[in-house]
């Protein structure tokens, strides 16, 4: 008790000393360093904004312009006009939405089984789920590409019935939303994240719900999921980020310009007939907007999703 109060007095004294000695100088220095660091981090983004606003003549100027003296806002509509950016973004949006919803559904179901049901082989199955994290996409990419290709171009015999091409290609085929999304609908990370949370829900709640006649599905949808909103949000934001940013897989499975995602469409601007580079930069900024909006709106969820597993809480 005495030690505690002593510590408190010491702390108060230290704080007082700091305040007395450096009334505001310490903070000013901190802010100076913070602003300097922020400037360096933001420089590439700032230069993109400047370049996107420069007129065609000054974009090739040297030394590079650090401030747009005559901002050309028209470059943004020009970018949308010369490149089907809206279409690319729509494609990315659809694919991302399918993946986010799909991951929430598959991982909620799987996490429920791992958290609430006791059955033989559960531990082993959970380890098998986790082991999928050890197979990078790049390792599986050739057979996955072949799978998508073969669904779109062959027929399959199931129990003596021939399933025609026209049916299979609705499941998967090159240049389709399905082929962009389906391989990513299940997630071991999401299952793990949700299971961790589900295990904090008291088992008594399940017993009480069972007495009220709730089956497993009803219990999951009306009790467990409403109690898990924050962690579901973290998973959703994380899934949004990772599927919106995909590059290699969309590059392989889309050839049709109409089916390109925004990342691939953006990269293809390099070789495209575009008015000039300022329009490309304007397009880059437009393409970056949805993610920046996500960051500003859902930073908390994003941080929770990204740091899962990194620190013990």
């Amino acid at each position, binding site marked *: 008790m005495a030690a505690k109060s002593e*510590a408190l007095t010491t702390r108060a004294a*230290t704080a007082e000393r700091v305040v007395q000695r450096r009334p505001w100088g310490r903070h000013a220095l901190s*802010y100076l360093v913070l602003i300097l*660091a922020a400037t360096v*981090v*933001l420089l*590439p*983004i700032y230069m*993109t904004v400047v370049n996107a606003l420069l007129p065609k003549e000054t974009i090739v100027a040297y*030394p*590079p312009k650090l401030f747009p003296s005559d901002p050309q806002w028209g470059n943004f509509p020009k970018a949308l006009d010369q490149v089907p950016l809206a279409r690319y973004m729509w494609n990315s949006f659809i694919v991302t939405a399918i993946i986010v919803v799909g991951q929430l*559904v*598959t991982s909620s*179901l*799987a996490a429920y*089984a791992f958290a609430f049901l006791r*059955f033989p*082989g559960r531990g082993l*199955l959970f380890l*098998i*789920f*986790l082991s*999928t*994290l*050890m197979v990078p996409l790049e390792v599986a*990419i*050739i*057979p*996955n*590409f072949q*799978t998508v290709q073969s669904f779109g171009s062959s027929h399959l015999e199931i129990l003596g019935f021939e399933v025609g091409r026209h049916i299979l290609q609705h499941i998967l085929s090159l240049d389709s939303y399905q082929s962009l999304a*389906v*391989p990513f609908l*299940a997630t071991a990370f999401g299952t793990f994240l949700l299971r961790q949370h589900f295990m904090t829900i008291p088992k008594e709640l399940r017993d009480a719900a*069972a007495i009220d006649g709730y089956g497993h599905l009803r219990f999951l949808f009306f009790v467990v999921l409403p109690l898990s909103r924050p962690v579901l949000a973290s998973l959703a934001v994380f899934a949004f*980020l990772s599927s*919106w940013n995909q*590059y290699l897989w969309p*590059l392989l499975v889309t050839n049709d310009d109409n089916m390109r995602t*925004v*990342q691939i469409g953006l*990269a293809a*601007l*390099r070789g495209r007939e575009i008015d000039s580079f300022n329009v*490309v*930069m304007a397009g*880059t900024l437009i393409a*970056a907007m949805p*993610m*920046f909006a996500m*960051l500003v709106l859902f*930073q908390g969820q*994003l*941080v929770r999703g*990204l*740091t899962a*597993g*990194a*620190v*013990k809480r």
Partner: protein
Amino acid sequence: MPRLPVVGLLGRGLTQIKNLGFGLLFLWPSIILFSLFVFYPLIKSVYLGFYESDPLGNQGDFVGLDQYRSVLGGSDFRHSLWVTFQFTVYTVVPGIVLGLGLAMLANQKLPGISIFRTIFASTVATSVAVASMMWLTLLNPTTGLVTWLLDQAGQPRLNLLNDPDWALPAVSLTTIWLNLGLATIVFLAGLQSIPERLYESARIDGASRLGTFLHVTLPMLSPTLLFVTVIGMILAFESFGQIHILTRGGPLDATTVIVYSIYLEAFQRFDYGVAAVQAVGLFVLVLGLTGLQLRFLERRVFYQ
């Protein structure tokens, strides 16, 4: 009517079987997807490595382990392995130093600090394509800002992305910036999980700022440090987009990392056999790393 509690061994067995049924009912979507898109392709990749490919990309003769031997022992693979190794060092080490630095800046208790936290985290919101397009402009050999800065520093003017010695560092610079937000976020979370009382006792003991950093912050942060290292290495091993946009693996294969080499073999030269061997090689290389990553997750399973 309320259900009666089932008693006895037989009853428990029945419940377990019933639960297994429910379990599979809940798990089948994930099981099917993982089987089709993770386990089957992994096995298929190993299998494809046993076969040569004809020039049209069709499966050719069975050559068994010979192809593994010739590809994994060949100079091309060794070159891409070396490039990947350099790329990993160039990106992970500066990424850790800068990420930790930014996180420590952002961990101060100051009014308005959340604005700086958002700014420092902002590169997680830039996709690899957006970041690469931005850096393509900065690295432009005639008008780019980096070129201008090098000029100011009195360096001879180089086309960085087109120079075999400088292309990899230039791509690494882009990657460091791209991954900086993630490292900062993870380090910040790690810093915030360090109990305040440890700093208080350090202060009472009269420890210097450097001493506090070395004896309190770093040891407490070691799990986070390891995690960021592992994640950074995995990200480096799996990098593709920035290389595809900035250099296409060139010049003179100076930026052909393993993943880019797999892409070239499989989807430009249609040699699935060789590409599959490289993919299996990549799998073995990152196996240890992803295993470590899994340990972080597992720790949360068992020690909660």
